[in-house]
Every structure is written in C-alpha cells, then in structure tokens.
C-alpha cells in the first residue's frame, strides 16, 4: 500500500513521457504509468526518470531495502542531500565502453540476401545513362546511400552530385550492399555488391566486379575524363579500389576527410566510443586499452595501401581537420586542399532582436546521440534544470527524443533548402545552442546553423572545427567540461552572457553551399 505522501512526492518528480517511452508494455496495457511504477516498476528496476535507477539504489543501499522505503522517494526526500548516488556513476559512459568491447558486429561484412542484377542488365542501365554526352564521369564511393539517409555527409554528397550534374558530368555513386563500419583488405570478387545510384537516382544492386568490368570497357572506348572520389571507404574493400584504380587509371583521385576513418576504424576517434583520443601513436596506452586499438595497426596498413593505390588529392572540410590528420599519418598523397562544404554569409537575414527569452530558450541541434552530446543536454534539461523557470529546452532534429521537459521541433535538413535549420532556430527564437559534440568536428553544419541563427553557442574545447567557428566568430564560448557547463546554468550566468551577446547586434545570415571541391575535381582533368 503506497501512502499518499510517497505518491505525492514521487508524482511531482515522475517523468510520464520518459516512462511510457522506455516501457511500451505499460502504455500498451493502458495502465497509468505512475501507478505502474509504484506498484511494480520500482521493484522491477524500471527508472521513473532517466537519471534515477531504483535497482542500483536498492543494490547499493541495503538500509533502504531493510527499511522498506521506495528508492526514488527516499532519494528525493533524503538521499540526494545525504550524497547518495542516483545511479551507477558514469552509467552512460560505462555502458558505452562495455558495448565498444562487446560489439564487433558493426565491423563485420555480411552479404546481402538480394540478388544483384546481371552484367547484361547493368550494361543496359549504364549505357542508357552514358549515351548522352557528358563532360566527365565521376565515380563516388561512400558508406551508405546518400539519397536515403539524412546527415551532414550525405547532404554534402548530394550537393556534390547536383553540382557535378549541373556542369554536365555523370555521377555514379556506390555504397556497400549491407552497410558496416569495417574496411576489408581483400576484394572477394564474387561476394562484393554495391547499391548503385546514378545522378541521384537509386538504380540497382550490382556486383562490384561487373561494375569494374563495365567501367574498364567504357574507359577503353571513351576519351572522357574519369574521376574517382572517395567520401568514405567504410564497408568497402580496399582491394576493390586498388583493382579499380589499376584498371581504370582515373584522371584524378580524391579522398575526403569527412571523418577520421582513414586513421582508425573508430571514425570519430572516440577512444572506447566515448572520449576523443587525438589520434595517438599506435602502441600508446590509449590504443592499448581501446576496444579498437588492437585493430588499428591492420587498419592503418589497409589505409596505407589505399593511398598508395590512388595517390589522391586529399580534400578536408576545414584547416583543423587537415592539421590533425596530417600529424597522425604518413600516407602517400599528391596534395591536400581545404574545401569547406559551405560558407556562412552574414547578410543580416532575419535579424535577432536584443530581447532575450524569458525563460531563456536553449536547444540541442541535430541527432540526439551520445557522440553529439545528447546525454549531457538531457541531464541538464531533465534533471539539473528540470524545474528551473529560467530555462526552456528544445531539441531540433528529424528524430524525437527526450523527456517531457524537452520540446521537440521536427527539422529535416536532408532535402532542399540548406537553411532549413537556421530558419527553424530563428522562428523558435532560440537563445542558446549547447553544441556538446564529443567528436572533433571536421566541419560542423550544426555549428554553422547555430551561429547563423544568432544563438549563443556553447562548445567543448575538443569539438574541432565547431570550436574554431565559435571562437573565430565570437559567437559563444568554450566550456571546459560538463561541470563548467552546468555551473553556467545553475548560477544563471548564462543569462547575462546571452544578454551581453545580443546587445552587440550580432550578425545573422544564411549558409551558402560551396562548389570549390567540384571545380577541383573537374577542372583540368585529362586522360593520362
């Protein structure tokens, strides 16, 4: 029998939205979530809010069990003040680290169950496309079908394809039949297949060797420059690219540094998937204890082969990305060029007023995932500042997530207007964006969008180009760690910072997608 006193305290702090989301069986049964928690959920170890673990609390504090007190109630009325822990310390990080060691499935290549089209059909499809005159043929390689997945890299490839087409060239894109994050050494001729997309239209599943055969024949019979551009080699075999480079002898080859997958299979350089590692030397302590460390030496050897085979021009979306990459490898390449995906144009479009929100409107922009800082944002919004009248919290993303303390604004940046996010942030009058990416961003569309919207942007010191953008544009500040971030909000100092920022008549504007990379790709190419 739960007393009314206990029920009142728990009810005032209970997160119904979170509980129903985490326990779909409760919603399906039509049971009131709070009642379920008090009667059964607590004993079963189901969390009443994302930041409290009743199972852990019972396990850790035997006196609570002996006294028969409900754990969440105890924590709220006494435990927190007594310094008791609400959940396992660093629960999210530890779960992430454990999963990094346990989960090799992401890196394993598997064969598709679909049957690829045959060579004859492939010839028919591609002859049809290539029968028209074209200035160049671009073969683009990445890890997934860019027309079907929403993301910064996918958008950049889409932009590249449209620009290539606008200049009269054909754009053939290949993605692994079954996406995975491994890079294989050998090309298994009979097994490898690609999802083929031509000029933005997904066409078919084709055998890699058939594509190689077709392109080799086309190359023999045509004087049109052939360009190879590798956006990502994850899920592919270097053997295939080596063979392709040998047979087709591209006029120009390019490898993009959208991420750091050319340095380590952990493409974001997150040691054990949770902390940026700065790409230390092989054999460092970091590589020794990292779940990916044991594979890094082989991975680097495979990458060295890739670079040797293609002798590419390296394209980096930012100076900081290129600097880090250069420091951490000794691959052979022709030259390296910095080509940002976009430029921020501060033309005063949709200017912000000097009046800041009351409550202050604080947002997370982009996917709500660990490596993009979502757990920290969620902790701030749904725990630390859950009932703080000074702040209102938002998630701007194509994906809904978070407790009922966070308002979701659906934004899909995958199609059309590249300023969709900027406009959405301005329409919602967002004052602060917490850009808590754990990754060393090579470019960061979200940082650009946040800055252009006139929001005050808070970043970590290790966020790569995002940190640089904020600092160079005076568009916010760098917070050393989570404790410093939380202090900014608890103390209320963030309100004054935003007031001071907006008092400066800060510029706003739009993003202009850049085409310099396409010019470099197509310019001056001729058959060797």
């Amino acid at each position, binding site marked *: 029998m739960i007393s009314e006193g206990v029920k009142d305290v728990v009810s005032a702090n209970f997160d119904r939205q979170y509980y129903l989301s985490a326990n779909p069986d409760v919603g399906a049964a039509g049971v009131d979530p709070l009642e379920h928690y008090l009667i059964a959920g607590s004993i079963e170890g189901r969390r009443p809010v994302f930041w409290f673990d009743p199972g852990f609390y019972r396990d*850790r504090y035997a006196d609570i069990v002996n006294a028969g007190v409900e754990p969440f109630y105890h924590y709220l009325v006494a435990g927190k003040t007594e310094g008791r*822990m609400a959940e*396992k*310390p*660093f629960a999210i*990080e*530890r779960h992430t*680290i*454990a999963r*990094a*060691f346990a989960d090799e499935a992401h890196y394993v290549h598997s064969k598709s169950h679909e049957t690829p089209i045959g060579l004859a059909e492939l010839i028919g499809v591609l002859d049809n496309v290539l029968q028209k005159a074209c200035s160049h043929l671009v073969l683009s390689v990445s890890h997934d079908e860019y027309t079907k997945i929403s993301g910064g890299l996918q958008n950049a490839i889409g932009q590249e394809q449209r620009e290539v087409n606008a200049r009269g060239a054909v754009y053939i894109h290949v993605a692994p039949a079954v996406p995975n994050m491994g890079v294989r050494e050998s090309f298994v001729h009979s097994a490898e297949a690609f999802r083929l997309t031509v000029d933005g239209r997904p066409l078919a599943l084709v055998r890699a060797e058939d594509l190689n055969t077709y392109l080799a024949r086309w190359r023999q019979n045509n004087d049109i420059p052939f360009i190879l551009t590798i956006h990502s080699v994850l899920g592919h075999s270097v053997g295939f690219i080596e063979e392709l480079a040998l047979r087709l002898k591209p006029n120009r080859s390019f490898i993009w540094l959208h991420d750091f997958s050319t340095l380590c299979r952990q493409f974001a350089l997150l*040691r*054990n998937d*949770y*902390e940026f*590692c*700065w790409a*230390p*030397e092989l054999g*460092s*302590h*970091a*590589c*020794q*204890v*990292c*779940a990916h460390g044991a594979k890094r030496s082989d991975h680097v050897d495979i990458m060295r082969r890739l670079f040797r085979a293609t002798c590419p021009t390296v394209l980096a979306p930012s100076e900081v990305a290129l600097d880090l990459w250069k420091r951490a490898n000794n691959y052979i390449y022709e030259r390296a060029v910095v080509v940002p995906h976009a430029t921020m144009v501060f033309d005063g479009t949709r200017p912000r007023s000097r009046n800041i929100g009351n409550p202050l409107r604080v947002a997370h922009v982009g996917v709500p995932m660990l490596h993009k800082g979502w757990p920290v944002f969620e902790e701030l919004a749904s725990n630390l500042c859950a009932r703080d009248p000074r702040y209102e919290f938002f998630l701007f993303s194509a994906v809904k997530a978070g407790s009922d303390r966070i308002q979701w604004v659906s934004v899909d940046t995958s199609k059309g207007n590249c300023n969709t996010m900027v406009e959405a942030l301005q329409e919602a009058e967002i004052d602060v964006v917490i850009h808590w990416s754990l990754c060393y961003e090579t470019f960061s569309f979200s940082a650009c969008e946040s800055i252009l919207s006139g929001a005050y942007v808070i970043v970590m010191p290790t966020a790569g180009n995002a940190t640089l953008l904020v600092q160079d544009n005076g568009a916010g500040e760098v917070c050393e760690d989570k*404790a410093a971030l939380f202090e900014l909000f608890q103390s209320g100092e963030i309100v004054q910072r935003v007031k001071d920022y907006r008092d400066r008549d800060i510029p706003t504007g739009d993003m202009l997608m850049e085409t310099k990379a396409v010019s470099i790709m197509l310019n001056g190419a001729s058959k060797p």
Partner: protein
Amino acid sequence: MTRIHCYTSVSLAYLQRARILAETVRRHHPDWTLWVCISDKPPAGFDLSILEKSFDHVIWVEELPVDAMASWIFKHNVVELCTAVKGYVLDHILEQGADAVVYIDPDIALFSPLVEVVESLKSSSVILTPHLIDCETTVSAILENERSALMHGVYNLGFLAVRNDDIGRRFARWWRDRLSLFSYEEASRGIYTDQRWCDLVPAFFDNVKIMRHAGYNVASWNISQRPLQFDRTGCLLAKGVPLRFYHFTKIDHVGELMIEIYAGQSKAIFELVEWYRAAMQRNESSTIPKRWWFYGNYDDGAPIPYEHRLTYRRDPSYFERYKNPYVHSTFRAWLEQTGQA
C-alpha cells in the same frame, strides 16, 4: 643488469589473468624470463600448451622443496597457498643465477616499462611498493584505506623486486621461511599472508627501496589519490605520471564498488576495467572448469571447509597424526567423530 626474471603465482582458476600479465610483461620487457608457479593440479584434458605459450618456466607446487607437502598444503586456502609458495620460488630463481627477480601478482597488467625498478635494481636489494603513498583526508577513506594498510600490510606484495646480492638472498630465505610457517589470512592476529611480514623488511634489511612513484601498483585502494587520465599523446597518467601497472584486484561486484566510491571524476578507470574483462574472456581456457582447485576437496570429492583447515593448522599435534589430511577417513573422520565437522 642483464638477467631479470619475473614470476607470478596462481591456481588454475587465475591462469587467464596470469596470461594477461605475461602478455603485458612481454610487451614492455621482452628480455625478461617469465615463470609461473601453479598451486594446483591440472584437470583431465587440460591444455598444457597454453602454459608454454605464455611462460618460459612452469613450477607446480608439489615440485617445491616443502616437507610434508600434503599436510602443508591442507593448512592453506587457495589465496594463502598461492602466497605461501612465493618465498620458495623467489629463492629458487635466485639460486638459478638470475641477476634480479621481480614478482608480480597475476591480476596485474603492465602499461609501460618499469624503468624506475630496473634502474633501482642497480643499487637497491629489495624494492617494495606501498599500498598508499599519500595521506587520506576524509574519515571514511582513513578507515577504509589507511587502517586497512595497518591491518593487511603497509606494502602491497602484488609486486616485489629483489636483487641477487647478499641482502637480497638473505631476504629471500627469511621470507621463504616465514611464509612456510605463517602465510595465513589472519589480519586480526597480526598476520596477513605475505604482506604483514614485509612491514618488518625496512627494519631488518639495508638497501631497501620504497617505490613511491604514483604509477606503480595503482588499485582500488589508492585510486582516490592517483586519478587516472589520458593525455593528448595517449599516455595514461596516474596522478600526472605514466601508469606503470594497475592491480585489477577483485574485478567483480566488490572491486567495482570500491572503484565507484573512489574514482572521483576519473572515467579512465572504467576503460581499464572493461579492457581487462575483455582480455580475461580472450584468455579463458575451456579446459579449466570454473572455480577449479585441486586442493579444495577431500579425496572423496567433498569440499574442504576453511574451518577444517583452521582447526588442523592451529594444533601441531595433528600434523604427525594426520600426515595426509586429504584422506577423508583420517582427519575429517576424526572431526566428524568429535562433532567438529
């Protein structure tokens, strides 16, 4: 100093840990000779080749020069026995002519070369690592850690280094003799396996080096004072100096609890713990049943309660009467007859 030998002591249930240790020692000291002393007997079907892959020399407990072996072994539980043999093995390896001998517990992993130890062995005869090198500042930590050191030994004998000189040999013989008689877990009576004995070492012997480098023997009992952190070069630092080795004692509920209490803001320790767990899985042998210990049972297969061992070892008259207490019809039968079983 050219010939450094390194040994560890296990029962077969801890072999996977010893293999991790061996791997990390070979990585950082490829020139060291590796020994393992196994206080056990192998089960049927045991794959002996896994020992050969990891170690240069293997000593089984019954090969040691111990009088009344069965009686001696019976007095000890598995931890006590694996500790009691350490003095014999040290003495033996010194006799073989090693320039220096390093003992390292099987649940330790090296992360960088033990450069300070190698250097110190040029001039020191015995090197010990204390449990704590800094004073605790909170009452709970004082009771948990400083008092524990007073009860269980100032120095953690998960690590020991001994030079093959006169002092080192005398220490080895003295330690062997003490452990042959009293390597027991009786902290309340002033004895804690091999550790409490070594509180006497700086008093008895010259040329003893107390290694206070923060990178040595980092463990759950001192991690609050030696926060672990990676720097940008990927070096793992303990209190700002390179981690030499970490002691993964009790990587289970109890050990993890201590780490949680004392880790502070250091998340790197949890990476080490998961790394170690993954390494243990990799090094498991399917030919060793879980919780295997040959000396844990009477000859009829019944497990030996620790109380039986205590009763046996506290009365020397039993040693002559029951020379092989493992035979259940002897000592145990007497216990049953007298209502002490």
